[in-house]
């Protein structure tokens, strides 16, 4: 079984390395390296956005949460799609019209470039690194489970890290895009196949399938045999704080997705704002179809495999692969596992390129060197070097944390920072004439600190463990949590907005108002927008 998985992994790696080689010959120059020469088409970018976005957390994580906690897990699926309306209606087109490579480009038009770029770069690196570490720990644990005997956790983490560095250093945005496209197609194919198999298992009868969901039998935490209706809300989000946590999660998803740096950079790879818009719609078709099908993956795992079996065969994250094994045997299990691996690689590559673009373009070129490259190609060279650095740091932290580390909160943190720091500042900069540099710095700073601070004192990091829990699986702070919600959005998003508004009102900056018209015209008409083609 492990050998079939290994062969499929190797095939995927060989194909993506071939693409990287092809892309490396087309990645000369900053426009080509950072934005794939802005020649990606609408459908290509739409699929790539889907591939960039649907992480291991959504494929393995969601299937697992639904398999164990039923309906409440499906609520993640809903938020992950609806969030794209914010991207479509508010962010994608102004960003493409007014920016060049990063979200900070849009802020720098009317605000003082240095302070906003420093803060925006800090926020981007925070979101990308945290998200990347969560993915890498997941990848290591997954590969260890699937290829146990062949590959250890550390080898798996190093392997994933080295591959993502190779894609980004040699193939730039073009290779990253195609890795994401292939991954998205594989993920959709695997999910459709798995959904059909689940339905076939219930003789294509929704009545039978949903009937079975209504009476899932398993042993609860106390070891008692229980029968539960998994379609009923409340298995995960229980009173007293459950409903608030659910709303808080919704806020982080709806407002955070449009502030995720690795999603935002994708809109610079298309020729114009209209293509960016159409690519969001393509992405929504794919992402929506995928998340509707989590019904079959998650509830299928709950009914066909059952929580008891999953618990003793690798745990929640193995729900989807175990479902594949139960329905169609070891080859399909290996195929679904290989897809999970491809999923992680595509996402970490996207995260790496957004982090390195921000470091090199925002921080190195525009802050340290006043917006002038000292020699041609410096910006790309710095990006390549920083991809090594980012990759090395992520590998080191993932190895230090180890496979049992509690990292789910890192994903929540990434969305919270994106929603509380990035989104308020982008939105206010596009829509509010009075907005200024002090407001942007305050908004980014307070949004970032509030998200990190609240997560630090939330039940994710603060709880009292029984002595049986050891090592990095233990909660960081052994005390009762000060903030009762796992998702800080409900408090940190308003704080981010308030910080940005207060910072603006407490300072005076005539130039930011004076230059608002330029950003307004550029972002709404595309006048002077970056053009497609090799520069």
């Amino acid at each position, binding site marked *: 079984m492990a050998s079939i998985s290994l062969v499929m992994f190797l095939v995927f790696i060989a194909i993506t390395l071939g693409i990287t080689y092809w892309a490396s010959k087309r990645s000369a120059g900053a426009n080509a390296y950072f934005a794939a020469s802005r020649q990606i088409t609408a459908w290509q970018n739409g699929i790539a956005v889907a591939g960039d976005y649907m992480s291991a957390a959504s494929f393995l994580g969601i299937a697992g949460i639904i398999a164990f906690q039923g309906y409440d897990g499906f*609520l993640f699926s*809903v*938020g992950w799609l609806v969030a794209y309306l914010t991207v479509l209606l508010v962010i994608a087109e102004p960003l493409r019209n007014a920016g060049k490579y990063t979200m900070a480009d849009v802020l720098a038009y009317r605000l003082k470039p240095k302070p906003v770029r420093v803060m925006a770069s800090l926020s981007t690196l925070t979101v990308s690194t945290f998200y990347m570490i969560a993915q890498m720990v997941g990848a290591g644990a997954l590969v260890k489970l699937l290829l146990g005997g062949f590959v250890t956790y550390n080898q798996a983490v190093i392997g994933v890290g080295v591959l993502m560095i190779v894609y980004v250093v040699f193939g730039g945005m073009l290779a990253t895009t195609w890795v994401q496209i292939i991954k998205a197609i594989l993920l959709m194919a695997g999910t459709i196949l798995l959904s059909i198999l689940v339905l076939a298992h219930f003789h294509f009868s929704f009545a039978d399938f*949903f009937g079975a969901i209504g009476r899932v039998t398993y042993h609860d935490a106390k070891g008692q045999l229980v029968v539960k209706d998994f379609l*009923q809300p409340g298995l995960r989000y229980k009173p007293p704080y459950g409903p608030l946590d659910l709303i808080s999660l919704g806020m982080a998803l709806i407002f955070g997705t449009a502030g995720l740096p690795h999603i935002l950079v994708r809109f610079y790879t298309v020729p114009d704002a209209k293509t960016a818009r159409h690519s969001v719609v393509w992405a929504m078709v794919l992402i929506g179809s995928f998340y509707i099908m989590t019904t079959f993956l998650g509830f299928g795992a709950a009914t066909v495999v059952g929580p008891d079996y999953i618990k003793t065969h690798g745990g929640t994250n193995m729900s989807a692969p175990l479902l594949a094994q139960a329905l169609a045997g070891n080859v399909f299990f290996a195929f679904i596992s290989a897809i999970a691996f491809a999923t992680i690689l595509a996402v970490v590559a996207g995260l790496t390129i957004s982090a390195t673009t921000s470091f090199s373009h925002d921080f190195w070129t525009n802050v340290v060197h006043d917006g002038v490259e000292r020699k041609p190609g410096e910006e790309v060279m710095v990006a390549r070097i920083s991809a090594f650095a980012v990759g090395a740091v992520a590998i080191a932290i993932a190895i230090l944390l180890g496979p049992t580390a509690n990292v789910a909160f890192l994903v929540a943190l990434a969305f919270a920072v994106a929603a509380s720091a990035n989104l308020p500042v982008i939105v206010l900069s596009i829509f509010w004439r009075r907005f200024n540099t002090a407001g942007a710095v305050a908004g980014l700073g307070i949004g970032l600190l509030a998200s990190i601070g609240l997560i630090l004192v939330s039940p994710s990091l603060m709880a009292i463990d029984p002595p049986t829990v050891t090592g990095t699986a233990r909660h960081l702070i052994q005390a009762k949590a000060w903030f009762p919600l796992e998702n800080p959005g409900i408090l940190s998003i308003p704080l981010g907005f308030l910080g940005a508004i207060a910072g603006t009102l407490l300072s005076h900056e005539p130039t930011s108002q004076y230059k608002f018209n*330029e950003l307004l*015209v550029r972002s709404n008409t595309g*006048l*002077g927008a970056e053009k497609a083609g090799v520069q």
Partner: protein
Amino acid sequence: MADPSRRADPTRPDETSQTTWDQIAESKPFKDLMAAKKIFIIPAFVFFVAYYFALPVLVGYAPQLMSTRVWGIFNLAYLFALSQFFMAWIIAGLYVKAANTFDQLAKDILEKAGNGRGGK
């Protein structure tokens, strides 16, 4: 080293001066474009946010009501969640349709600006 063509900052000094931006921003075609966008985008945004947050609020605070079975198979909670997907797709479709009008208005403004730097 002050070659402006190599500046990586998009705020490079270029031919379009501040007064040109102000003139376009104050012009009637541009104000029409902004008005057309507002008429669609603000209601669409408010609607989808309200529709979306109705789900966690109802599921969180009225779980019994939402557990009501419909047609003996599904329950209200699942159907409402499923409807969110179609809501998102429908609004996206309507927006793409409305945006064709915005594109037309923007094209007129770009042509009037007439400097051939339109990026379209």
